[in-house]
């Protein structure tokens, strides 16, 4: 449920979405990812109107959701190879990414045997496999320890160079990364400003 | 008429044939009537809802009028 939310994210910048569970963060991401169709209102991604022009947008965005979107019975390598084929990406990219997140050694184990942290690393690989220019990141650092956070940094951090929309349980971390902050409360925009102008009290109220 | 029918219907005893034919047409009639009954209950529900809406709108309006009357006093 989203209402009266209207904003623009310039290319290359980062929008942080704050709010409690159920405030509409994931809904916003799923709408941007063309997975949910908005009942009303206007959504433009790369200047293409959704949901009508969804096919023009798919393949240029990467979604990292709560659900890792990986098959539990397939190995890490098999999962990524499947997605690489769907996105018409060479299999060399799969090895490159597995190496980048330090999983080359465990790439042949079925995903169901991997720890939450390793699954999250894999999900990051899946989301950036096709080098998307828009990254939709729902709690990207969940289950990741500091070392792993550093590993995925170049893939989904500001260094990646993509436009990013991210949500986080930790408002301070999100504020540090963002160019623009959207506070959501029950599907409505509570505030929308730059990080240095955010009222700490307003953030606290969001999570109260 | 029915006597005439008996005269020309050789094989089947009319009393049983008539029963079945009547049964079939009664099924048809009953269906239509049941439908009318269902629509009647729905119509009365709609009527009730319109009456309720009328009451609610009246209540809202009288509340607003009461507010307006109090204003100069306040």
């Amino acid at each position, binding site marked *: 449920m989203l209402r009266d939310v209207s904003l623009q994210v310039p290319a290359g910048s980062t929008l942080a979405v704050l709010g409690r569970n159920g405030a509409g963060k994931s809904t916003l991401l799923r709408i941007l990812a*063309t997975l949910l169709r908005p009942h009303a209102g206007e959504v433009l991604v790369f200047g293409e109107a959704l*949901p009508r022009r969804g096919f023009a947008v*798919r393949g240029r965005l990467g979604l990292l*959701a709560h*659900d890792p*979107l990986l*098959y539990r*019975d397939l190995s890490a390598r098999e999962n990524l190879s*499947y*997605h690489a084929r769907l996105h018409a990406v060479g299999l060399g990219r799969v090895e490159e990414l597995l190496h980048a997140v330090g999983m080359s050694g465990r790439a042949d184990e079925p995903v169901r045997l991997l720890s939450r942290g390793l699954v999250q690393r894999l999900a990051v690989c899946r989301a950036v496999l096709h080098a998307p220019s828009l990254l939709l990141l729902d709690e990207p650092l969940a289950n990741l320890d500091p070392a792993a956070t550093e590993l995925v940094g170049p893939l989904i951090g500001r260094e990646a160079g993509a436009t990013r929309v991210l949500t986080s349980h930790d408002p301070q971390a999100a504020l540090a990364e963002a160019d623009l902050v959207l506070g959501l409360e029950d599907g409505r925009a509570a505030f929308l400003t730059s990080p240095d102008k955010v009222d700490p009290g307003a953030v606290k109220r969001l999570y109260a | 008429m029915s006597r005439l029918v008996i005269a020309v219907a050789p094989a089947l005893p009319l009393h049983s044939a008539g029963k079945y034919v009547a049964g079939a047409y009664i099924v048809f009639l009953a269906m239509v009537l049941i439908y009318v009954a269902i629509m009647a209950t729905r119509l009365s529900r709609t009527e009730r809802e319109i009456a309720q809406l009328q009451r609610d709108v009246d209540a809202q309006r009288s509340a607003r009028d009461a507010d307006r009357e109090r204003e100069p006093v306040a």
Partner: protein
Amino acid sequence: MRTALTVLRKDLLLELRGLETLPAMILFAIVTFVIFHFGLNRDTIDGQLAAGVLTVTLLFAAMLGINRLFVAEREQGGFDAFLLAPVDRSALLIAKATALFLFLVVLEVIAVPAFGLLLLGPSLSPVLPGLIVVLALGDVALAVIGTLVSAIAVQTRARDLIGPIIGLPLLLPALIGMARGAGPLLVAHASSSPPGRWVAILALYDLVFALLSYAVFDFLLED
């Protein structure tokens, strides 16, 4: 087409790893033959009765596979992952129907000889080519309609119930075609070619539903 192959490869790999569906279908079919032996109290059967037992067993075994066809996609995010990719959505229909068809073929490769061994009176080998034609055409109908029904049912709350109650009536004409086509083959000294009328009806049914599924499948994937 390449996308369909990719998805098909993934589905077969998943089945190979999990072995969740196919063994259950095969076991179900064989147990059902044993049940028919006791239920009918007959050691051997032939003709239309045999064809009926065989095709009904295959139909119900297929229902098991149909119920599970999209479960992994729904529970493990496969739908979302597929929808995020810049690919033609019909590829999923083609891949899933092909996977189901292959499952049915493997099922029949084991269940039909088992049927010949356990229940069927007349010998199977002289009529095998004709039987293969009838079963293959029936499998196409089962695969196409099964995929469509499964895609509808998987998004409902009572998916284990909705699948069969929609699927069975839709598959009835295909069952009639398979049973009546196979019936004349399963008697002693049968001619080896199945009745042309039934082959034609099955083929027509396959064709119409393949086109129909292709036309409506996209609508089942949105959001």
